[in-house]
């Protein structure tokens, strides 16, 4: 992100920033959950037949 845009964000009212932080947490949580599901799916694929956990 360009420094000028970051300065604009830094000048937002605190309540607006808190809303954005909540959105960032939700995105981050969703990404983490997707990554875990993908990793579990990969593990299942490479586990020899009969040894699925």
């Amino acid at each position, binding site marked *: 992100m360009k*420094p000028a845009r970051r300065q604009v964000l830094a000048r*937002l009212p*605190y309540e607006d920033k808190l*809303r954005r932080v*909540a959105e*960032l947490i*939700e995105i981050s949580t969703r990404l983490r959950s997707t990554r875990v599901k993908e990793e579990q799916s990969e593990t299942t694929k490479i586990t020899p037949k009969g040894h699925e956990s």
Partner: protein
Amino acid sequence: MPASSIPLAEIFAAANGLRAAGLIEEYALGGALAAIRYTEPFTTYDADIFFIPVDSGLSAGIPGIYAFLQKLGHTMDGAHTVLRGFPVQWLAAAGLTEEAVRQADAIELEGVPGRIMRAEHLVAIAASVGRLKDRARIEQMLEQAELDRDSLDAILLRHHLKLPDR
């Protein structure tokens, strides 16, 4: 935690309640959630409430504080209390952090009065802790926050601190 809702006003209400009940002397929000008042928003997963204990014993009155918060509906998760899915860490203030609590700004959030550390104290506290993420916070604050450099220099001098080389 639903989007658009970090329950900071409720956290302030709880801290105001602790103060009114005489369980703490004073409090202020510190840490990343306080830094965001002065910088662009970034991801953080908890709120740090620094408090000046009334009880000068080793426990700093923590058991009474947690019992009070549990009555308000906070749950416990390790060293954190959790309010509507958002963790809150309650930290006894001393030295620099006590000064930061005493000199914190009064704000209002959703009609609830609260207290938040000044930018200069947040920078000094980050300098005193000195982890990689604290150095990054200092850099971000120096770039984005409207700092009172005289005040920052005075705090650093008073607490024998210096900013990391840039």
